[in-house]
């Protein structure tokens, strides 16, 4: 028991102070018939050496993306994480503290959160960011709930089929028991056709949910779509790839009212899907209905600048059943990572990362489709991901061949889109080299 500090003498003295004869007596409140009465049936304890080698064995049974070459994307990306991010985010004072309920001894976390909120506002071009949600998918659902509430249009929500299918499913799950019509707008050409939107939107619609670049990697015509949405008195909720903002117009400048994002790309390892970072930013009018923690600047008693959790009346611990969301714990440590990442990259670094992704993805798309065995499913402008179709329909063969060579070639789409069961979604980050791309091409495309 490496983490207990009291020896038998301590325990004896403590029981004496309590006035109890044994530790067992302290559990008198638990009725005897409800006691387990046997040891738990879990494996025996392991010392640190045995534990480390057991988990090392389990880890070794996985093919880490780092040992192979990863062209998988779809919301989780193999971007480079600078060492400073890991180093700073391993500081005990960030890792082993909690929600800053006592601001006087939590200024480090509070200021880092305030910086994060500012960085996200700068990145998205919107007024406010909260201090994080769980992940990009649940952030979509929270954003839609916020739009329904603020627009007082609780009955109807539009979502493009080009939004991540898992995000769409999360939204459907969140809305399942509320009386709201969730309309999926088809995107057969790879992006949302403005005419499709115009036909579907009405004066009961709370919002349109769009992804930019979308799940297929394509760039949506956001400004045109935003105008249609706003003309109908609805809000545009956009899920973005934060790395793309090194090049693409900020969503706030392109008409988005609420922006959500999966923040994993900003300095967090892929870790088989979590913990990740849910980003949520919005225009002023949504402020009072924002979910999650917010940090605000103020002064202490001697007039020194400092930071506190603020606008807490929105939250569950005060408003309970009328809270804007049930969220309590968020993803603070991942937000700190994002703040360090964005500070390290700065405007030029992020632009360079984005351009490397753009160039390499286009090179890969061009090379992969050169021989004609693969074609581009959606000939649309794209950023770092694209969909290729196997003209012989055999994506499983392709994937198996690539995997045998240590390459994760892409994500098969048939699970979500039956009509795309001969297609792969390929993601190319700045980490992929020409050599790796050429190797992929020689295996699957040539």
């Amino acid at each position: 028991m490496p983490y207990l500090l009291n020896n038998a003498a301590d325990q004896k003295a403590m029981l004496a102070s309590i006035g109890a004869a044994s530790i067992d007596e302290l559990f008198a409140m638990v009725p005897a018939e409800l006691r387990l009465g046997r040891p738990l049936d879990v494996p025996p304890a392991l010392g640190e050496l045995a534990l480390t080698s057991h988990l090392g064995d389990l880890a070794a049974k996985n093919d880490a993306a780092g040992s192979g070459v990863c062209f998988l994307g779809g919301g989780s990306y193999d971007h480079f994480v600078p060492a400073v991010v890991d180093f700073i985010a391993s500081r005990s004072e960030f890792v082993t503290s909690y929600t800053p309920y006592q601001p006087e001894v939590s200024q480090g976390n509070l200021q880092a959160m305030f910086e994060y909120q500012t960085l996200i506002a700068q990145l998205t071009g919107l007024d406010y960011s909260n201090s994080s949600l769980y992940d990009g998918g649940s952030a979509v659902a929270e954003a839609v709930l916020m739009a329904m509430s603020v627009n007082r249009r609780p009955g109807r929500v539009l979502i493009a089929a080009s939004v991540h299918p898992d995000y769409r499913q999360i939204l459907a799950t969140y809305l399942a028991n509320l009386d709201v019509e969730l309309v999926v707008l088809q995107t057969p050409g790879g992006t949302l056709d403005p005419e499709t939107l115009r036909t579907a939107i009405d004066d009961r619609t709370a919002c349109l949910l769009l992804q930019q670049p979308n799940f297929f990697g394509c760039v949506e015509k956001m400004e045109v779509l935003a105008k249609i949405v706003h003309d109908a008195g609805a809000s545009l909720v956009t899920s973005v790839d934060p790395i793309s903002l090194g090049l693409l117009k900020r969503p706030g400048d392109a008409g988005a009212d609420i922006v959500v994002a999966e923040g994993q790309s900003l300095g967090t390892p892929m870790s088989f899907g979590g913990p990740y970072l849910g980003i949520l930013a919005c225009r002023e009018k949504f402020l009072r209905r924002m979910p999650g923690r917010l940090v605000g600047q103020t002064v202490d008693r001697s007039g020194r600048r400092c930071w506190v959790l603020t606008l807490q009346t929105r939250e569950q611990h005060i408003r309970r059943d009328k809270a804007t969301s049930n969220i309590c714990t968020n993803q603070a440590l991942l937000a700190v990572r994002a703040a360090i990442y964005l500070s390290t990259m700065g405007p030029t670094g992020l632009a360079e990362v984005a351009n490397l992704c753009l160039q390499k993805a286009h090179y890969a798309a061009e090379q992969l489709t050169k021989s004609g065995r693969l074609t581009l499913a959606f000939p649309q402008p794209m950023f770092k991901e694209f969909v290729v179709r196997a003209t012989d329909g055999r994506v499983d063969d392709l994937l198996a061949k690539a995997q045998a060579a240590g390459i994760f070639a892409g994500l098969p789409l048939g699970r979500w889109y039956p009509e795309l069961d001969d297609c792969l979604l390929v993601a190319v980050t700045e980490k992929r080299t020409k050599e790796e791309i050429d190797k992929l091409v020689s295996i699957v495309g040539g």
Partner: protein
Amino acid sequence: MKLDPKSIQYTSTHEWIHLEDGPGGTKTATVGVSDFAIQALTDLVHIELPELGRTLHAGKPFGEVESVKAVSDLYSPVEGEVVEVNASIAQHLDLMTTDPYGAGWLIKVRVKSGGSQSQLLDHATYKRQCEQAME
């Protein structure tokens, strides 16, 4: 406007109401929050009031008032339509504290004739209720 707290009526949920004759035989109600309730809420930080034209129902919330760590619903004493909202109050919440029965008023409601109405207390009865709550 400066009302005498002794001459107006109150709800058990701490709103005050002052009724006046309006145009065409209608009645207009001015609604605010009692000094007692505002003291209990401590430092106010935010208020949400209804937009003009909204229909209110007696005993139902018409807005919210927030302090740093508490939020309280505001309940309409009468049924009717919001005809005026104190536009300066959101930026000057201290008026609710310094002048609760004057510049700190919140909304004016055109009372629906024959509409529902909360049970209203006179000043003495309301004061007794507050004193009991203190104990």
